[in-house]
């Protein structure tokens, strides 16, 4: 079974903090993705990576950066967390179909 794990299920951070969300996949997928999910807005792609050290902006990259130093690990970084980044963050990996992690519910206070 494909497994995608995310470092935290729930996270509470303060405004201005630097936040790291980690994602690890065990299927040797080249593509990995970060989405955020908000009620009424569906899934919105933040960044994706198609190879180690390669990344592309998605639809809403502002306020985020990513790191992919190893094939199995894709990190999302909030340089200075803000309250409007309170959301559910979903990581995925895969080729045509995507395999999702369980999500991290981030609250920024």
């Amino acid at each position, binding site marked *: 079974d494909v497994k*995608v794990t995310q470092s935290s299920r729930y996270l509470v951070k303060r405004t201005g903090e630097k936040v790291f969300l980690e994602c690890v996949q065990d299927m040797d997928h*080249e*593509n990995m*993705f970060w989405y955020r999910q908000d009620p*009424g*807005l*569906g*899934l919105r*792609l933040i960044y*994706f990576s*198609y190879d180690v050290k390669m990344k592309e902006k998605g639809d809403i990259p502002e306020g985020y950066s990513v790191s992919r130093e190893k094939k199995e690990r894709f990190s999302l970084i909030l340089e200075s967390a803000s309250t409007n980044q309170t959301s559910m963050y*979903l990581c*995925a990996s*895969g*080729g*045509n*179909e*995507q*395999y*999702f*992690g*369980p*999500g991290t*519910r981030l609250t920024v206070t």
Partner: protein
Amino acid sequence: AQSVTQPDIHITVSEGASLELRCNYSYGATPYLFWYVQSPGQGLQLLLKYFSGDTLVQGIKGFEAEFKRSQSSFNLRKPSVHWSDAAEYFCAFNTNAGKSTFGDGTTLTVKP
């Protein structure tokens, strides 16, 4: 523009009744098509996919979907819904380098 439309935001069905969730896509050719399910507080799980060939595809949990090129549709069906099917369902397509476009989702409520 490429897009996926799920016209129904919320659907309620009785347990044991049949279900159809609608999905329409906008793209110049036939994309790869998917349905995912998300239980509360969880990530998305792939239900089924269509790449080519037989236009009726079977998935997990007793779901099936039919691709209709003439209608640009990929509707999800289940003949008899169970209470555990209550969840949010997402239609998606993929055209380029594994990047997917998702619909906004349909929330399914199952009445006892």
